[in-house]
């Protein structure tokens, strides 16, 4: 007697499948016919137009969001969420204004210091950016003023009286190695100061 093969028995069990009854079959086919009648076939051209509509919507959204992000990012500082957007747009702006990158870096140093945030890295970036500029660029002087050895800024001075509190005073920032601030400048006086009034920075020569 040949040994029994379970796979043969499994295949033979196909014969045991009970057929769908005529009544069930008729009901199923009727339901299928109704579903086919209700089916909305979208023509190819209409499908393409739907795709185009979505593409147009995406372009419009991108056209609004991207410029907005660029405008907002223009005031961002290192560490801000949109700072990378600002850096990404600079090569494009540099096509029209070769000093834009250096100007951004210098302004970032000023803004970071005004916010009492670390600016050493920003100053390094500013130095690198200014190194690429012509030797007669006025931005070099601005960078010199910001250098950690001696930076002279004019800020609203705390004074003894309320009347003098809104006046300005000259503050000298000494090198990081020196832990004390002095009221006297440690570098030769120059004919140029960076004056800060109510958050605005302007350079006077």
């Amino acid at each position, binding site marked *: 007697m040949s040994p*029994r*093969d*379970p*796979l043969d*028995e*499994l*295949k033979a*069990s*196909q*014969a*045991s*499948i*009970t*057929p*769908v009854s005529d009544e*069930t*079959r008729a*009901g*199923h*086919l009727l*339901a*299928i*016919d109704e*579903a*086919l009648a*209700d*089916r909305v*076939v*979208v023509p190819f051209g209409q499908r393409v137009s739907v795709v185009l509509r979505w593409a147009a919507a995406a372009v419009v959204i991108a056209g609004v969001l991207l410029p907005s992000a660029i405008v907002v990012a223009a005031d961002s500082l290192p560490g801000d969420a949109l700072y990378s957007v600002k850096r990404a747009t600079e090569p494009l702006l540099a096509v029209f204004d070769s000093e834009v990158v250096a100007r951004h870096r210098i302004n970032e140093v000023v803004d970071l210091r005004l916010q009492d945030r670390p600016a050493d890295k920003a100053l390094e970036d500013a130095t690198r950016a200014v190194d690429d500029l012509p030797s007669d660029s006025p931005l070099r002087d601005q960078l010199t003023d910001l250098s950690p050895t001696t930076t002279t800024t004019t800020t609203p001075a705390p004074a003894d009286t309320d009347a003098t509190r809104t006046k300005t005073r000259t503050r000298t920032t000494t090198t990081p190695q020196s832990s004390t601030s002095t009221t006297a400048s440690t570098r030769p006086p120059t004919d140029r100061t960076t004056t800060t009034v109510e958050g605005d920075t302007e350079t006077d020569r």
Partner: protein
Amino acid sequence: MDVIADELDRLVEGVVAGKNHAFHRVYDLLADRLVGFAVRRLRDRGAAEDAVQQAFLELARTSSSFRGDGASLRAWLYASVRFRCADEHRRRSRRPEQPTDRLPEAAAPEPMDRWRSPELTSAMNALTQRQSLMLELRHVDGLSGQDIADLLDMKRPATYAALDRAEASLRKAFTEAVESSAPAASLPVRKDDPHVTS
């Protein structure tokens, strides 16, 4: 040669176009096997037929976007029925038991259980659920390895390897079931066997 897949190949175009006669022919080719497949999952003939109907209705609604050949169409229908069976299982597990005066239809043994030998039933029960599913799809429903791979979301080489392992496990379990079911007294014993003492 897969005759059903070949005929399904010729019907796919009509199915995509939503032709009634193509749907009717696909139904006639596959409905019995799909119902059998669902019955094995659900142990309930009525629920199995509902699952198959829902699968065909879904195909009728969405076939305009179907891309593939006849084998793919068959695998798609099996997958659809399988998912509906899984949904039904989940529904049953959430549904609290209701007292009823009549016995549920599922209590009656299914024809396939009655037809299979006790040894084969025992051997199939010894396999994992996935192994028994693969073997039934391959040897009862006649699906190809590629179809099973698509249906179970597996790579084709892994599917063939798993099928080989399942078949080996089935043979081993079947042999054990046959040996354990054979009564020791009925084994032929030589009268001059020196180990046999009277």
